[in-house]
Every structure is written in structure tokens, then in C-alpha cells.
């Protein structure tokens, strides 16, 4: 069902864009090729940053350092009302989409997607972003070297999301 919705959205988006261009009689082939050129340029420019980030993330996750930090932070989060079983997810999500989905699948398999923990994980996983990845790719395209208050605010927002979701889940599922 959900797959169908997403397929319909993507297909109709493309059809709509192409038909609109046909009506306005602009050269859609030329525009597309121009866009592709731009896309290649963008990709090449973000590559070094993405490469550097992935290297660090691989080390962080595969050495098990994530889990180690998690055991330290677990009791603190528990006090704030955040399920400590979801710590692995909370720690990996800001860095890697694929790694966080692997952790989420593990949570679903262990607790079930309809348990409190399963529902909480679904909510926080979908309403937060892989923020370090976003920051890296977006800033790669600029001359910016100082990000000022960007990262603190991004982390604070993520934290608020974690807390609000916890209140929501604990309040509505007993």
C-alpha cells in the first residue's frame, strides 16, 4: 500500500513536470541535460566531504564505540523518559541512514513494531534526519568554514523531538 502511494507520487510528479513543460513548449530535453550536468558537478563537489564523513562513521559504528557511549548515556536518557532500548537508534540516526534502519529492524524484530518501544522507534526514526550527513553535503557547496550555531540548534531540535515523542507514546499507549 505505502509502496504504491510512493510510486504514484513519484510517477505523477515526473509526468506533471514533463507535461507542464510540454504546455509551456520549453525544450525539456535540453533542460534535463543541463540539470544532469549540474547534478554531476554537485556530486563531484560533495564527494570528498561525504567520503570523510563515512570513514569516521564506519569506524564509530563498526568498532562498537556507539554501543559503548550508549551504555554511559542509557541511565541519563531513561531518567528523561526516553526508552533506553532505542539508544542505538538515537546514536546512529544522525550519522547514517542505512545503519539506523538496520538498528530499527533489529528493534522491530526484538520488541515488535506495535509495542511501545516499536512505536517510539518508528516515530523518532522518521521525524529526525541524518543531520551530520545533511550538514556535510549542504555545506560542501559553499565557502562556509564556520557553522556558528547550526550544529547546537540541530542537536537541540533532535533532542526535543525525542522528548516530545516519548511523552506522546507514554501518554497514549498504556
Amino acid at each position, binding site marked *: 500500500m505505502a509502496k504504491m502511494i510512493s510510486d504514484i507520487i513519484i510517477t505523477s510528479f515526473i509526468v506533471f513536470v514533463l507535461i507542464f513543460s510540454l504546455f509551456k513548449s520549453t525544450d525539456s530535453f535540453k533542460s534535463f541535460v543541463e540539470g544532469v550536468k549540474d547534478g554531476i558537478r554537485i556530486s563531484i563537489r560533495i564527494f570528498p566531504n561525504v567520503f570523510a564523513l563515512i570513514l569516521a562513521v564506519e569506524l564509530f559504528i563498526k568498532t562498537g564505540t556507539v554501543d559503548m557511549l550508549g551504555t554511559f548515556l542509557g541511565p541519563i536518557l531513561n531518567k528523561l523518559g526516553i526508552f533506553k532500548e532505542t539508544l542505538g537508534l538515537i546514536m546512529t540516526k544522525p550519522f547514517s541512514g542505512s545503519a539506523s534502519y538496520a538498528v530499527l*529492524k533489529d528493534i522491530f524484530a526484538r520488541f515488535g513494531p506495535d509495542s511501545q518501544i516499536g512505536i517510539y522507534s518508528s516515530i523518532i526514526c522518521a521525524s529526525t534526519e541524518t543531520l551530520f550527513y545533511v550538514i556535510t553535503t549542504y555545506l560542501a557547496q559553499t565557502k562556509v568554514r564556520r557553522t556558528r550555531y547550526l550544529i547546537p540548534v540541530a542537536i537541540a531540535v533532535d533532542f526535543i*523531538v525525542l522528548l516530545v515523542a516519548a511523552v506522546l507514546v507514554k501518554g497514549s499507549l498504556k
Partner: protein
Amino acid sequence: MKSLKRKKSRTLKAFWLFLILFSILVQAFRGDISKITNILFSAPKSAIEIFLTIALSIILWSGFLKVAVDSGLVKILQRLLKPFLKLLFNTRNVKALEWMALNVVANFLGLGNAATPAGIKVMEELSKENSKDFASSDMILFVILNTCSIQLIPTTMIMLRHEYGSKNPTVVVFPILFVSLVGLFFGIIFCKVISRVLRRWQK
């Protein structure tokens, strides 16, 4: 003074260094150093794989997005979103606002792959009017907007829940939207307050 400025500039870099050094240290402490070299040698391969997936989807969507830009479709989108964008951003750069409109719409429809190239174009445009080496308040707010992942239907999540035998895969749809909107609200408030305080402080 200069050294203080420099220290501030390094959040991302410091973070990167911390991730690498701390991970190596933790692993070395456990005694099995060979695991570090194993990861180091396999990391480039997975980096290339991840990059290729990202790059190809950026290239594909850049093509379609450019068609939407050239045909004037984004002008309509931009006009629709103008009140909202004008309220949030200081920039009057039409190109930046157009790409912004595309980015917001793509995110909302769940076309994350299409949102990324549009977002990068926004940063490029914003960077043109920002000659300084630090991020402008518009740039910061725009990135925050993108990290909030506002999405009408979280399709990936619904699929995954269905796959793992959920009796009600869509029950999370409204909570997800609500929670991300709360996040967005606070993100905007934080950005606006901090940039205003900083401006006053500099004067």
C-alpha cells in the same frame, strides 16, 4: 581573539576528529587493533557504494528539477510558498527562493532524493550573497528546515512496519507529522532568537 574565533569554527571538524580518534582509542583499549585496519580498508569501498547511490539519484533528479525550473513550474510553486518563505528568510534572491520552494515541496511529498539537489542549489545561491566565511542566518535556518524532515506520508517507515508484521502500520503517521512539526517550530524559534541576539551583541 583570533584563536577564539578559530576554535569556534571547528565544530564539524572537531566532531570528525573525535569520532575517528575516540573509536580507534576504544578499539585499541579492547586490544584488537587488526579490526581498525580492517575497517579502514573496507570503508572506502562502502563510501564509494553509498556515494554512487547518492550521486546517481542527485543526477537523475537534477535533470527533472531543471525541467521544472525552465518551464516556469517552480515560479508557481514559489508564488504559493512566498508568504511562508518570506516570513522565515531574509534573502530576496529569486533563484534561491525558487529552489527553496522545490526543496520544500519535494521534502513534503517524501521525494528526499529530489530535495537534496534542490537544497544544495539553495545553499549555492545563498552563498553567492554571503562573502564571509561563516554561515549566514538564512543558510543555518535552511539547513535546520531540512533536518526536521517534514513529510506528509512517511512511506519508508510504513513499509518497514508492514514488513515486520505490524497490525496497524499507519498508526504512526500522525504522531510523526506532529513531532516533526514541533521540532520545526522550535528550530525556527531557536534560529530566529539566536541570530537576533547575536546581531544585537555585535553592535
